[in-house]
């Protein structure tokens, strides 16, 4: 009996490593955020009440629990600003991910079909931008997109436009920035799947009467779906909470959850409300992911 127990403990040891990591660096901090989101703002340090009095023992915990309420969430629901920010964030994230699929798939496909000897170089080229700071790369886009920036100069030199178009500080600039910044996250998982795809399958499809297009539609595309989904998740989730790109390229009017969170936290010093926004953001992002994974694992287990 004890041997059996020891055996199951031994088997739990390996999965325990990531679980403990997740618990210590995500679970506990998130509980703190949830707790703050249920508190009230205060002009104090820290700027919220109640604060747990560690010396009061269990009574202190009870006092804290009694003082918590859902006031901040009610504010979020009541004020259309937050709803609008949430919807805008989702729209930007989904729209950008759609664009990323359109741009990233051909790139990943071309990489996977390139001569084997070139492929490590192509992967390296995809990753090289990470060697410079994300912030600097987004800043660089200001120089490209601004009124007298590189893009407008190039368009005017080509005679496509006669006077500069306003791109910076528009939703289009946010889209451009997001697609640029997240492209590797779409391309690399797709490449990994496409590179391993047996070319014989496409030949078999062609042999059985499929044109190039129909072989792609019926074989390559369905078999690359796991990569597409992985890439899409890697993009949708962080883009929904993206702060730097809308802040630098989108101008002051861009309403996205990341920016709202930032201004609640730093401008208004309303930590409880900022925490509530953070919790809502997590639910928006994690909900569909969990649902999707459920559906996916059910589909894979189908006999």
């Amino acid at each position, binding site marked *: 009996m004890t041997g059996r127990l020891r055996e199951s403990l031994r088997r739990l040891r390996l999965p325990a490593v990531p679980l403990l990591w997740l618990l210590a660096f995500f679970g506990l901090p998130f509980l703190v955020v949830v707790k703050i989101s249920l508190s009230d703002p205060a002009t104090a340090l820290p700027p919220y009440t109640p604060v747990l009095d560690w010396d009061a023992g269990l009574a202190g915990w009870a006092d804290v629990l009694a003082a918590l309420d859902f006031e901040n969430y009610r504010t979020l629901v009541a004020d259309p600003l937050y709803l609008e920010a949430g919807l805008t964030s989702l729209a930007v994230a989904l729209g950008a991910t759609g664009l990323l699929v359109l741009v990233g798939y051909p790139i990943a496909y071309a990489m996977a079909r390139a001569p084997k000897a070139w492929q490590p170089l192509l992967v390296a080229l995809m990753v090289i931008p990470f060697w410079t700071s994300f912030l600097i790369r987004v800043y660089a886009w200001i120089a490209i997109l601004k009124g007298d920036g590189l893009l407008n100069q190039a368009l005017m030199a080509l005679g496509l436009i006669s006077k500069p178009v306003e791109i910076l500080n528009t939703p289009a600039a946010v889209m451009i920035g997001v697609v640029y910044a997240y492209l590797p996250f779409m391309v690399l998982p797709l490449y990994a799947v496409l590179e391993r795809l047996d070319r014989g399958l496409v*030949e078999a499809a*062609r042999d059985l009467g*499929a044109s190039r297009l129909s072989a792609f539609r019926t074989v390559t595309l369905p078999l690359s779906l796991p990569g597409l989904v992985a890439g899409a998740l890697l993009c949708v989730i962080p883009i929904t909470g993206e702060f730097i790109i809308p802040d630098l390229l989108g101008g002051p009017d861009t309403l996205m959850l990341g920016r709202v969170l930032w201004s609640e936290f730093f401008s208004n010093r309303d930590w409880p409300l900022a925490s509530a926004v953070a919790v809502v953001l997590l639910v928006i992002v994690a909900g569909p992911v969990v649902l999707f994974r459920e559906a996916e694992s059910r589909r894979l287990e189908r006999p």
Partner: protein
Amino acid sequence: MTTPAPPPATGRLRFEAISKRFDTHLAVDGVDLDLAPGAVFCLLGPSGCGKSTLLRLTAGFEEPSAGRILLDGQDLAGVPPHRRPVNMMFQSYALFPHRDVARNVAYGLEREALSRSEIAARVAEMLRLVQLEALSTRRPDQLSGGQRQRVALARALAKRPRVLLLDEPLGALDRALREETQAELRALQRRLGTTFVVVTHDPAEAMVLADRIGVMAAGRLVQVGPAAELYERPATRYVAGLLGDVNLIEGRLGEGGAGTLRSLDTPLGPLRAFDHHGAGAAGAPGLLALRPERLTLGSEGLPGTLLDATYLGEKILYRVGMADGRVLRASGAPGAGFSAGAPVHLAFAPEAASLLPAEPA
């Protein structure tokens, strides 16, 4: 029940001076070949000899660098793979992992303008043909190697191709299953009457499956013929060694030419053998090829010493040391009582031995 196939009117495949060059490498070098409709033709040779390239040229995955491929008189040049009335069974089977057995078989039919009921009927017929009806909803990763092989076969046959190309069709199966499957494949082909072109590196498999065999080496077609002809009358040393055990004795060719009995001046003395394909001019170096079962142990012929006798069940294999130190192998029916160390004589009929050029190919 499937009705017996009518005599095949289609499926005549012709290669005319086909060459295929990859960069500097000549994979297929001037192959001329005319395949009878409704027969099984095996391309036999080592890996890299160009046999698979010939198959891929026929399927349309590659275009020839020179020459023409004709199917029932129609030049296939420029016809894309999906428009060619030939289908291929791939070496790795290339089954679609995201489709179950029935939908794998249906794939080719779905690409045509067929109704759902027609497709379903044809899929059922194909699955019955390969005895996989019970597994139609399984996915490829839930099948054994033999079952996968049958799915691949059913999928390739579903469109009723005029020619079926099979790339090492039994290569992924274990030995016991392979022999059983060879017989099944042969029976299926007889029933359907489809022209089969089989690529294999296994001489035994080629001999079981094929009506005719084409032996390839280094991109060239070395010899074409039924198994018996290749075995009894090999044109080169390579073909002789490929299809079975053979004794080779080197020497200088005497007078004569193709289709005559000639003598060969060997270290064992002058020997007479038949020159089937033209071994070379008089005085040129040549080889005498002799199957062990064509050598008889007795009291007449070339003198030697019996080194050992190995009992192999249906026959006994003798190794005989000759006067010049070489060892010849002879085989005979069990029962003849020769003991090791005894002086013996080896004899053979000149018609049973072949004269070959000395070059290895």
